[in-house]
């Protein structure tokens, strides 16, 4: 059995820097509590060098030049911890969530994947760095030894079986995290390190410190043994960002969204997952002067306008943060939030990543990620209802259809099916006597054109529409259709296919576009009692 413990030193500060990576090279101090009683709770090395100390007053620290002071954010720590756990699950299915800053992995049987234990530990360090955390890693045959070594030694520590006591002996007693009283007692006895504690006799230690003393002794000797307490893998992926200053414009918002997306995608990648949907929630600040329309809207409906929510459903699971940022930007451009943003919460719905291999004989098809961006752009240009793949509706109502999302199927199955169908169709075409004929296409007028029609013996003989006059030289009809008479949208029509010979005056007006003769479809609407031109054959 082998265990790897991953410990993030100065976790509070690392969580804050993870949310604001530009702070990494600067002197940073975190304050907690309510002003004016707020105190410094975490600092980095640069801040310590500048003279900032833990428990220093926040107002006092603010007097130091070039120190970035940030408020401690528990939500940031929670997000960082969730990301930290994801790193654990990316390497091993058996993970213990020991503390906010510590996780323990059961790595039995896994080291062969990385050639050596050292490589495994290095990989864990690298994966943690990809989510913005820089941990210590220790590998030992005992859970507690691994935990204490990770807390006590910087970087990567490997402790072979049998050397636990010797390796831990140099660690200071504070790493054991004893109670304050016990720590004070040990200090008075002159016990400073694990090694010194390990030399004390157990019965006498038990008499003076009770069970805690015995436990601390076993820990110092590296012989305290226990089983791993396994954590259940998280299924929610959420990142949030509280802003000190409200954001009103799309550009700075995109920058922040990009950062959140980077973090989320890194977490998804660590778990070998992708996202099938994203939910963006934003908390908006109350403005001094509210838009009267918004106030009316809020009063009419029970919608909470202080929260703005958008869901982005993806046709295929994705985890490319740049593509996702473009998609979210396009959505926000078409429907921006009505107010200043003070908090952003972005959550992803995890899904298995798309895995596909194209066949050798399958034609090219648009890349799903690019296609999704294109669809969004097109929707922004012509409207959502005007872009997609047309689908026929099961009705006899003329011209009825609906738009469906465009998702071309270039998979091999589709291709094979179509290949057989095409071959069959071609064979039929070759044997058919009308093999050289092509289907005549029909073009619709939207909206249909109003027309004046003169009839003779019940058939159209003269037609006027779009300022043109034409003689009907051949007509076929009437083809009567009706339906939905039980609804308001009921229809009853007499359709005619007519060939029109346009007057030379009409020809002069638009000689290029209007031919001498043309085939049109017209109808008499019995509901509206008028003639209309539905379209023309082209």
């Amino acid at each position, binding site marked *: 059995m082998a265990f790897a413990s991953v410990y993030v030193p100065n976790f509070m500060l690392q969580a804050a820097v993870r949310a604001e990576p530009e702070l990494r090279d600067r002197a940073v101090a975190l304050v907690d509590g309510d002003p004016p009683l707020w105190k410094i709770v975490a600092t980095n090395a640069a801040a310590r060098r500048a003279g900032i100390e833990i428990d220093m007053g926040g107002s006092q620290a603010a007097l130091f030049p070039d120190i970035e002071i940030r408020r401690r954010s528990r939500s940031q720590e929670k997000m960082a911890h969730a990301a930290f756990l994801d790193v654990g699950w990316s390497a091993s299915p058996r993970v213990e969530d020991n503390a906010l800053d510590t996780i323990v992995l059961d790595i039995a049987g896994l080291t062969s994947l990385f050639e050596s234990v050292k490589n495994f530990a290095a990989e864990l360090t690298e994966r943690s760095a990809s989510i913005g955390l820089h941990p210590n890693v220790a590998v030992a045959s005992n859970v507690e030894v691994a935990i204490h070594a990770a807390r006590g030694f910087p970087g990567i520590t490997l402790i072979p079986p049998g050397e636990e006591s010797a390796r831990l002996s140099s660690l200071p007693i504070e790493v054991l995290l004893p109670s304050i009283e016990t720590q004070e007692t040990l200090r008075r006895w002159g016990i400073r390190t694990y090694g010194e504690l390990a030399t004390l006799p157990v019965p006498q230690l038990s008499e003076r410190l009770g069970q805690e003393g015995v436990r601390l002794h076993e820990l110092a000797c590296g012989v305290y043994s226990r089983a791993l307490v396994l954590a259940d893998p998280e299924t929610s992926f959420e990142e949030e960002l509280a802003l000190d200053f409200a954001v009103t414009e799309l550009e700075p918002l995109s920058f922040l969204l990009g950062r959140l997306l980077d973090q989320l995608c890194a977490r998804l990648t660590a778990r070998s997952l992708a996202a099938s949907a994203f939910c963006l929630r934003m908390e908006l600040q109350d403005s001094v002067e509210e838009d009267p329309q918004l106030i009316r809207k809020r009063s009419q409906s029970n919608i909470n306008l202080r929260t703005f929510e958008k869901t982005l459903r993806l046709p295929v699971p994705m985890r490319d943060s740049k593509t996702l940022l473009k998609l979210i930007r396009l959505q926000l451009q078409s429907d921006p939030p009505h107010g200043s943003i003070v908090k952003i919460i972005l959550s992803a719905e995890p899904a298995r990543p798309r895995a596909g291999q194209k066949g050798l004989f399958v034609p090219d098809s648009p890349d799903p990620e690019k296609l999704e961006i294109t669809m969004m752009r097109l929707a922004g240009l012509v409207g959502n209802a005007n872009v997609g*793949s047309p689908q026929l509706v099961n009705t006899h109502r003329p011209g009825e259809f609906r738009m469906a999302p465009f998702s071309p199927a270039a998979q091999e199955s589709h291709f094979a099916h179509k290949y057989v169908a095409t071959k069959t169709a071609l064979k039929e075409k070759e044997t058919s006597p009308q093999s050289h004929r092509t289907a005549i296409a029909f073009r619709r007028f939207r909206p249909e054109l109003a027309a004046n029609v003169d009839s003779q013996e019940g058939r159209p003989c003269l037609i006027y529409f779009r300022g043109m006059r034409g003689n009907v030289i051949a007509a076929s009809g009437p083809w009567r259709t009706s339906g939905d008479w039980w609804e308001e949208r009921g229809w009853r029509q007499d359709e005619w296919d007519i060939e029109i010979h346009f007057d030379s005056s009409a020809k002069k007006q638009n000689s*290029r576009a209007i*031919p001498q003769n043309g085939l049109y479809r017209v109808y008499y609407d019995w509901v509206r009692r008028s003639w209309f031109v539905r379209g023309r054959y082209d």
Partner: protein
Amino acid sequence: MAANLAQLRSQVELALAGRVSSPFTLRDLSVEHVATGISEVDALAGGLPRGSLIEVFGPSCSGRTSLLFSALGARTMDAEACALIDGCDAFDPHSAEAAGIDLKQLLWVRCQNLEQSFRATDFVLQAGGFGFIALDLSDVSHEQVHRVPLDTWFRFRRAIEGTSTILLVLEQEPHAKTCASLVLQMEAEKSRWKSTLAPDRADFCRYPFSRLVNGSDIRAEMVRSRNHRGIKTDFQDVGELRKRDDKSVVFETSEIWGF
């Protein structure tokens, strides 16, 4: 002299670096052609060249849309992703499906004006991966399309050059000039009607319902073809064509009932 030439050549290559790769290498001009689905037109033009801009023009009712539907049907049946940028929102899905187009493979963008049409075409071209893109400007007036700057057509041609995408533009008059690799002019010859009654009883004035549209004869003329000359394609062996001369053919369209 030779040294000067070599120096000049390297200077030109350096100046064009990053924009034109191997400017002194002769490009392979062999272009794959695909069928339009109309054997007469395929025999005339050698099919539709991939990576090219093709113009089909003519007045209304001249058979431009029939050619488009036939080409779309052929491409969608080959499981290619196709796009139709509909400049005047005139596409009829019922008629298209009856003509053999697989609507699931078709992206339809319903535009309201010319600017939208061109921007939508740009977006679709940038997406890549489409086998066939049609820009339907049939109902947009010649004067409006004429105002489109020529660099737009050059941009379109540049976007599809070297790809397997075909960009077909339907219009009333040709506008892309040298950017178009193939220009076809369409013209309706005559419409055909058929009777459901015996010839001696076929009184269409008394019984107009006894007459049905049977289709029309369409003349397609090849006005310009960059790739056709000297290139033999698979489509030139189609026999028994009703050609008027070397540059035009007549084909028949037929009515499909049920839409």
